[in-house]
């Protein structure tokens, strides 16, 4: 599935970050994966573990934070988590609320061993 391509793209970013920090080692990375991003966190972690084996990043720690699906109401500006597709605003009942987060796929941080 596409998690392997995504993992490979993450590894490219890691290599670029490592090149900027000669003499240090990247020990772990933090990822933020939204609930409706279409990416399976377990599968992504598995793909990353496979790709880093026998590379400079062997043994890399992978911490994945899943981001809940949040909507904002255009009428009353309330923001709320959407659970079980309940998209109507809990404040005023407006149905046409908009996604504000939950579709992200981000690298949030790196843990670096200082040289």
């Amino acid at each position, binding site marked *: *599935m596409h998690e392997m391509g995504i993992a490979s*793209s993450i590894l490219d*970013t890691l290599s670029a970050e490592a090149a900027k920090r000669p003499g240090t080692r990247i020990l772990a990375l933090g990822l933020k994966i939204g609930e409706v*991003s279409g*990416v399976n966190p377990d599968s992504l972690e598995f793909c990353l573990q496979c790709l880093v084996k026998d590379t400079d990043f062997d043994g890399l720690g992978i911490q994945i934070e899943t981001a809940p699906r949040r909507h904002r109401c255009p009428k009353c500006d309330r923001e709320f988590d959407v659970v079980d597709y309940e*998209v109507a605003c809990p404040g005023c009942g407006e149905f046409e609320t908009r996604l504000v987060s939950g579709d992200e796929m981000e690298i949030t*941080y*790196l*843990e*670096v061993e200082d040289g």
Partner: protein
Amino acid sequence: MSRVSVKRKVLKENDRIAGGLRAGFLARNVLTLNLISSPGAGKTSLLEQTLRRFPGGRKTAVLTGDIETDNDAKRLEPFGFPVKQITTGGSCHLDAPMVERGLAALGAGDIDVLFIENIGNLVCPASFDLGEACKIVVLSVTEGDDKPLKYPATFVRSELVVINKTDLLPYVTFDIARARENAKRVHPGIDILEVSCTTGKGIDEWLGWIEKRLDAVRKGAPEPKT
């Protein structure tokens, strides 16, 4: 040990190329539509109907993706618009570099609308920005009416759902009202059209939707988040 904040998009390189494509499309006033569906929902049939009835004076072109074969390009070429097949050789989605290469090979010149027919797959294509103005999901009535709930990522990121094969409604258990409700539950702002590529019903409305969307691009309407 120290923690360094990075805040990078996971698909940084794809998104960079997609951003370049999008800027190019906007600069040339091209409306680019990324068609996504499960295999067999009717993306190519919808394009056949579209090209057959494409408004006179308007120019279009198609990039059509498949894992193997150029069957789809062969189906679409007779309509006289530029068509280029992208074969991914196994990859389950199109990415921005494939579109960039396909576009160069297409050599379409001045066009109004570019259609990108993604690989038949309701999961992976959702994650890859191709520089399009919007994603459109095609859902057919021979599938389940709960598809939007099962594949939310695609529906959340699509601006329009085209429900196809409506001529088959008398023969299947698909509940179109429930499908519409499910699509709205996943993405309250999504537009919904009903078509039959066999009878041609609803194709005028689909062409009207494209024309309206083209106007929005030309008036410089802000691109939606989806």
